[in-house]
């Protein structure tokens, strides 16, 4: 049995490990264009700022391939021949497979504006993006040398998300001083935070009326905006970019509906799209390019599975959706690896209650469930500042949004699944508290309870 996995991100590596557990002797290959070793994409901002070393972002020790008996193929996959069961590689022989697991992740959504290919304009999704952005804005580190894997493959195509670009800073002979970050989402705010740590005061352009509207309401986002401004970020909401301008040396201006902004570096963080164009439509996709899979994560092509950011999975409501999240990529990878290598009945992908957490500047954020219906809201501004929002329908809780404190999302999810009354939940909120020790607990006065 030959199993081939495309991608050594979290989904691909989980799939390879799950397959190894099922089949101790099968030949398992892992193809990766981006880097030799599995690294944590979620940690990119910390390497940029200097909080982490490159090596620290690797969740497995470097002997993982040898220990698990995985063959590493550092190459760019450029297509699939399902009839002959071959994965086509750039600059190398095609790789035959009996079972293929696709985990190619996502790439940055391309910037749609004129001038987006100017030097000094880029995104922040891949290791090569990190290399580029460090060169643009960060002083070199003394001891933490980037691993060789940064070097992009010369066989890589010019439109590869893993290509290495020259920085405008190098041509200019000076690092960027006036960075602009476009896109009011999680990656945007992470880049802003890292830039602050590097001593810059970025301009942060947000198209919507407030920051991260799919996750926060106006009041919650207002707090985040205050936090950004308190740190010296020029955060501008309701600002739509129409063009990037500059010369051969690089970007100089960002043109928006609210005027033109001087810039010597532009990071575009307007979301991600499935990294599946290289498959040329051989595997059916949804409209956004996500690889359509059934509940067992199987694609419509024989013996091909998909998982992680690139997979469009069936949701409880019958629709298909991609979910660019670490924990879903991990769960899907594990399942795809198991199903692709196990002779028994396939296990179904069970998408439980939605949850997530993040850190918005210094504000802790946790969410669970759906935030529609009636709202109960409580804010405190004493020793701890926090905001708690609980959505309920017909008296039963359906969702939570928390800022400023830590909460155990699994308890919240259980309350939602049990259909607990909102009053019960508020009375028992302490069971979900996850604050570090000595942080005073949240106290909701009696007259504020629902």
């Amino acid at each position: 049995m030959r199993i081939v996995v495309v991608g050594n991100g979290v989904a691909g590596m989980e799939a390879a490990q799950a397959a190894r557990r099922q089949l101790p002797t099968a030949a398992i290959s892992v193809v990766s264009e981006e880097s030799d070793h599995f690294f944590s994409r979620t940690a990119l901002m910390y390497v940029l700022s200097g909080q982490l070393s490159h090596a620290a972002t690797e969740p497995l020790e470097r002997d993982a391939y040898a220990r698990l008996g995985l063959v590493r193929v550092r190459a760019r996959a450029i297509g699939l021949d399902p009839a002959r069961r071959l994965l086509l590689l750039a600059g190398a022989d095609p790789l035959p497979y009996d079972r293929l697991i696709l985990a190619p992740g996502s790439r940055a959504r391309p910037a749609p504006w004129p001038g987006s290919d100017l030097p000094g304009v880029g995104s922040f999704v891949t290791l090569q993006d990190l290399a580029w952005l460090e060169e643009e804005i960060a002083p070199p580190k003394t001891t933490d040398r980037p691993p060789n894997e940064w070097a992009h493959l010369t066989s890589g195509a010019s439109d590869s998300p893993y290509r290495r670009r020259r920085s405008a800073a190098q041509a200019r002979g000076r690092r960027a001083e006036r960075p602009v970050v476009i896109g009011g989402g999680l990656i945007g705010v992470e880049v802003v935070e890292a830039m602050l740590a590097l001593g810059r005061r970025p301009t942060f352009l947000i198209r919507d009326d407030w920051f991260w509207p799919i996750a926060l309401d106006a009041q919650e986002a207002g707090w985040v905006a205050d936090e950004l401004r308190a740190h010296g970020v020029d955060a501008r909401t309701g600002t739509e970019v129409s063009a990037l301008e500059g010369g051969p040396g690089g970007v100089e201006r960002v043109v928006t509906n609210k005027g033109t902004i001087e810039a010597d570096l532009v990071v575009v963080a307007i979301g991600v799209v499935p990294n599946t164009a290289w498959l040329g439509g051989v595997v059916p996709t949804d409209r956004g390019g996500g690889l359509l899979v059934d509940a067992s994560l199987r694609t419509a092509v024989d013996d091909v599975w998909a998982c992680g950011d690139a997979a469009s999975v069936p949701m409880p409501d019958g629709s298909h959706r991609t979910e660019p999240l670490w924990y879903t990529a991990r769960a899907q990878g594990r399942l795809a690896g198991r199903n692709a290598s196990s002779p028994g009945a396939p296990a179904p992908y069970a998408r439980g209650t939605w949850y997530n957490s993040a850190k918005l500047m210094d504000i802790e954020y946790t969410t669970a469930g759906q935030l529609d219906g009636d709202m109960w809201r409580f804010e405190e501004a004493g020793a701890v500042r926090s905001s708690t929002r609980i959505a309920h329908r017909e008296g039963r809780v359906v969702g939570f949004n928390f800022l400023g404190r830590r909460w155990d999302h699994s308890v919240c999810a259980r309350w939602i699944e049990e259909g607990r009354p909102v009053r019960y939940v508020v009375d028992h909120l302490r069971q979900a508290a996850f604050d570090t020790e000595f942080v005073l607990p949240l106290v909701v006065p009696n007259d504020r309870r629902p």
Partner: protein
Amino acid sequence: MHLQAQAGLMTTYREPWRNRGVTGVLISVALIAFYCVLYWTEWLSPVAEALGLRNKWFLYGGLYSIGMIGGAAYMLRRHGTSRYHQVRLAVNVSIQVILGFALPYVMPWFEQPEYYFSYFWPLKYDALYPHTLQALPGYMAVWAVFGALVLAPAASLLFGKRWYCSWVCGCGALANTFGDPWRHLTPTSTASWRFEKVAIHASLVIAVVTTLMVVLGQTVGGTAVAGIADEMKQGYGFVFGSILAGVVGTGLYPILGPRVWCRNFCPMAALLGLTQKAGRFRIRVKPDMCISCGNCTTYCEMGIDVRAYAQNNESFTRASCVGCGMCAHVCPRGVLKLEAGQPLSVDLG
């Protein structure tokens, strides 16, 4: 207030003096030289006298206190948003300045011996020698025996070894203040864990055997036993007390992180670690929330690969964990929580 915010860390790897750069190495050389002068010369005695201090050990105690207080200010400037760190450091530094410096200094004025209430056997390796106990007033001798054999292990069962290693002990206090800038340098590899397990348990065995020999020598044993015991005592004091705890333990802060001694050689840490494994303390992991970023592992001063547990949804207790609270503090997804809430178990595995 953001009592759990993490922003203080962000440029760690862009500061050469904290990353084995030339300045880092020079600081290490200077610290090692200082300890050599302190232990094996009398050069510091005139300095102590000129300052009106009783002897060079109080000069050392004074410098130690200054190092702790300065380091605590630095540490709290970076991580002061953590309520746990605020409380813990305030307690630990106060205990050291009072019980580790001021009280022993003034006790002779009241015709009492210089006694350090915050150090216990086996860290203070001579604390239970019969001759040591006999020379003390009764209440001190009782405290020395009770503290080492009852209080320390019992508190470790209930709260974890952190009650001592991160709240009371002077070595811990210096590591978490003066040594804090270098905490990310502690090796985290499996190989370093293997070395730790062998080294620290060997240290415990050596400490216990040496103590037993000395007890025998000073009580029932003949002159032969007493002679061997004396040599063991001297050897132990030289290797563990001076070289490993001082020269290596503190001198290598800027190279191998601030807990070289505590992690690999301290017999007290070994003993408390074993009781911690059986006790109520653990680090609780929130299920399926870890993004494997590596902050917890990087900033663990004991070199524990916290991420390995967190990404597998395993709440855990490691013998070496001193409960400094940094992993929970730096985790950007709030995955970890220190707690002393497990039922007591007998699983020493």
